[in-house]
C-alpha cells in the first residue's frame, strides 16, 4: 500500500464493513454471482494424497438431515445408536482401521464424525460387511436413506451417498482452495480479479453458499499420524 492513502481510498476500504454494503452483498450481490457464475459443490472427505502420513487418521464428518424433524425424531435417532452400541464396538474391533467414531445430534441432523485409516471406500465397505444393520438403522431415519438401504445390497450407492454427505474439507490456505475449485472445473488459470487473495475470494463465498456445512481444515493432530494398529501394538493392546 502507498503511504499517501487518500480520502477516497480510505472510503473504499471501509465500504465492505458498512451495514449498507453487507446488506447489498448478502441480498443482491452474492445471489447474482451465484446465478452468473455457478459453482459446483466440492466433494467431501480428505484431499487425495500419496503421503503416508496423510492417509492415516483421516476425518469423516457426516451431517445427515433426519426425516422426522421433531423431538420424537431426534429421540428415535438417539435410541437407534444406543440399541446398537455392542454392534458398533464389534464393528470397530473387526474393521480395525477406526480410531474414534462419534454420533452427535445437531438440530434436526444426526451427525457421525470418525477418524479412520486408509482409503475411505474401503473403510465404509468393511463397515457395511461387518455391521451393515447399524448403518441401515441409522440411515433409515435420514432423508433419502430408503434409496440406499439395505446397504449390503446397495454397496456402491451407499458408499457414494456417504461420500456425498461427507463434508468438504476447506484447505487451510486460499490457494489450495482455489486449486480444488479449478480442478473441479477443469480450469487452467486463476481469474486474476475475482481470485485476489487479499480479498475474500468470490469463489470461496459461492462455494460456502453451495456447501453450507464444511470442515475447516482436515483436522489438526498434536503428533504425527499413526494407524490404529500401530497405536494398539505400541501400547501392547494387540491388533
Amino acid at each position: 500500500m502507498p503511504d499517501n492513502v487518500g480520502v477516497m481510498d480510505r472510503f473504499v476500504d471501509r465500504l465492505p464493513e458498512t451495514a449498507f454494503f453487507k446488506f447489498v452483498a448478502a441480498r443482491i450481490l452474492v445471489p447474482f454471482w451465484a446465478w452468473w457464475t455457478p459453482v459446483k459443490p466440492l466433494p467431501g472427505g480428505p484431499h487425495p494424497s500419496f503421503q503416508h502420513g496423510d492417509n492415516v487418521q483421516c476425518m469423516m464428518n457426516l451431517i445427515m438431515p433426519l426425516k422426522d424433524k421433531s423431538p420424537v425424531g431426534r429421540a428415535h435417532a438417539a435410541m437407534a445408536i444406543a440399541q446398537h452400541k455392542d454392534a458398533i464396538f464389534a464393528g470397530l474391533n473387526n474393521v480395525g482401521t477406526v480410531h474414534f467414531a462419534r454420533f452427535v445430534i445437531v438440530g434436526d441432523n444426526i451427525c457421525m464424525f470418525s477418524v479412520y485409516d486408509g482409503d475411505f471406500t474401503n473403510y465404509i465397505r468393511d463397515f457395511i460387511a461387518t455391521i451393515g444393520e447399524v448403518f441401515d438403522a441409522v440411515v433409515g431415519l435420514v432423508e433419502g436413506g430408503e434409496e440406499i438401504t439395505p446397504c449390503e445390497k446397495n454397496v456402491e450407492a451407499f458408499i457414494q451417498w456417504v461420500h456425498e454427505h461427507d463434508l468438504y474439507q476447506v484447505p487451510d490456505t486460499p490457494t489450495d482452495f482455489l486449486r480444488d475449485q479449478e480442478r473441479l472445473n477443469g480450469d487452467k488459470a486463476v481469474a486474476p480479479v475475482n481470485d485476489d487473495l487479499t480479498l475474500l475470494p468470490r469463489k470461496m463465498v459461492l462455494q460456502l453458499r453451495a456447501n453450507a456445512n464444511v470442515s475447516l481444515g482436515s483436522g489438526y493432530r498434536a503428533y504425527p499420524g499413526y494407524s490404529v494398529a500401530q497405536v494398539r501394538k505400541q501400547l501392547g493392546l494387540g491388533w
Partner: protein
Amino acid sequence: MVDLSDLQGNVLRGYKDRPYVRYLILEVADRNAARRWLAAAISGRDQEVPQITSGDWGKAKPQTCFNIGLTYEGLRALGTPDSSLGMFPNEFIEGMTARAVKLGDVGASAPETWPAPFNEPDRIHLIATIYAEKIEQLDQVQQHALDRNALTLLGTREGYNFNGDFVHFGYRDNIMQPRFEGIHDPERHADGQPLAPLGTVLLGHKTNLEGLFWRVPQPEVLGHNGTFNAFRVLKQDVAGFENYLDQAATDLLAHPKVDEVLPPGTETDICQALPVESPSRHAALREIVAANLCGRWRDGTPLALSADVPDRNVDRAKFDYDENSRCPYGAHIRRCNPRGGQIVQRVANNSRRLIRRGVPYGPAYERDKAGDAGKAEPERGLLGNFIGASLGAQFEAMSCDWLNLGLQDPRITGSNDPITGTNDPDTSWFDLPLKSGGTIRLRGLPEFVNTRGGAYTFLPSLPAIRYLGSLTT
C-alpha cells in the same frame, strides 16, 4: 452353475499355449459399424471378423484367441443407454487416470507422462487382445479386426511369454490363480487357498464379503456374468533391480549379523538350487534379498515353506502365513494377498483376490551383456491384467491400502511394496526378518516399476456383447 460358453475365455483361462500376445487399443470410428462388428464377432459364422473366444472350447481348440474389454467411454460410444451407464461403479466411470493417486500412479508413473495412446484416455474405447502360437498370426487377426472400418487403431502393445514362465525380474510366475466355487477350472490351476465365491470374479453372484452384492448394471443381460479388468503397462527397471540386489548384498556382507542371514556354507546350497552362475556368498545374499522382497525365491519356492534354501519339492501354491512364518510381512506376494494371515482389516482376508494375467514385453535382460558404455537399456516390463468383479473392492483396495501404505500390518505401515511400490530411495525401507526374531532394515529402494499406460475395462459376457451389438438407438 455358470455356462462357460457365456464367458469370455480369458476370464478363466490363461491361454498358456499361445505365448504371443498383442493388445489393440481401439476407438469406435462409427457407432453402427462397431455394433455390427460386435455382433459379427460372436456370430460364430462370420470368418471376416475375429471370433471372440469363449470359456467353452468344445472339441476344437481355437488356433488363436481373441477377447475384448470396453472402457466406460467405449460403452458410451456404442450408445449404451444412460440408465445403464449410470449403474456402473464410480471407479470404472471415472477411469484409471482419475484414480492415479489411489493407485500410486504419481511422479514418473503419473498419467500425464504416459505415452500415446494412453495420453488420450477418453479416446480409448475398446482393448482387444490377440493370443497366438505364432507371431505372424497376430498380424492376420489384427488385419481382420480392423477390416470393416468400425474401429480405429490408436496403438498396440505386444508381449511374449518367456520359457519356463519366468518374468523380467527373474522370478518364476504363473504359479497359481484363484479357483472358484461352482466353476470347472479348465486349466486346473494350482491354488492352495479356499475356493473363492464366484462373485469374486463375476457380477451377479455371492461375493467374498459375506452378505454383500455388487451392483449389476441393467439390463441384466448387460451386467450379469461380466467382470472388470485393470489393464496396466508396467515398465520394469531390471538393471536397477539387479543393481539394488548387488548393493544390498554388499551391505549385508558387512553387517554384523550376516551369518544369521546366511549361515557359512549354505551359500552353496542356495546357488546350486536356483542355480546361480559363479556361486559366492555375495551371489547367495543377492538371492536372499530377492526372495525376501518378493516372498518367493526366484524359482517360485515360497519363503513361507522354505526360507533357508529354495526347494522345488514343496507345493508352491499351498501355504499360509502364521505367526511363525518366515515370509517378511512386507514381501510383495504377502502384501498383495495376505491369505489367512493376521491382518488389521479382519474382514478383508481373502476378499481382495484377483485373477492375474500378465505377459512380459521388451527383450529379456541379460546381465552379463548389460552396461555397455552409452547404451541405454531398451524398455521392458509387464502387460498386466488384474481381473475382479469389483475394481474398488479388489484392485484399488489392494493397491492403495496394502501395496502403498502397508495398512494391513502395523509392522509395515508407512512403507511401500518393495518391488512394485512407488518408492523414494530417500525414505523407503524394508525389514528383512532374522531367525532370531529381529530384522535388518534395508533402505534406499528406488522405484523398480513405473506405470506407462492402462485403462479400466469391462469384460462383458458373450450375451452382453450380443446385446451391445443389437443396440439400435
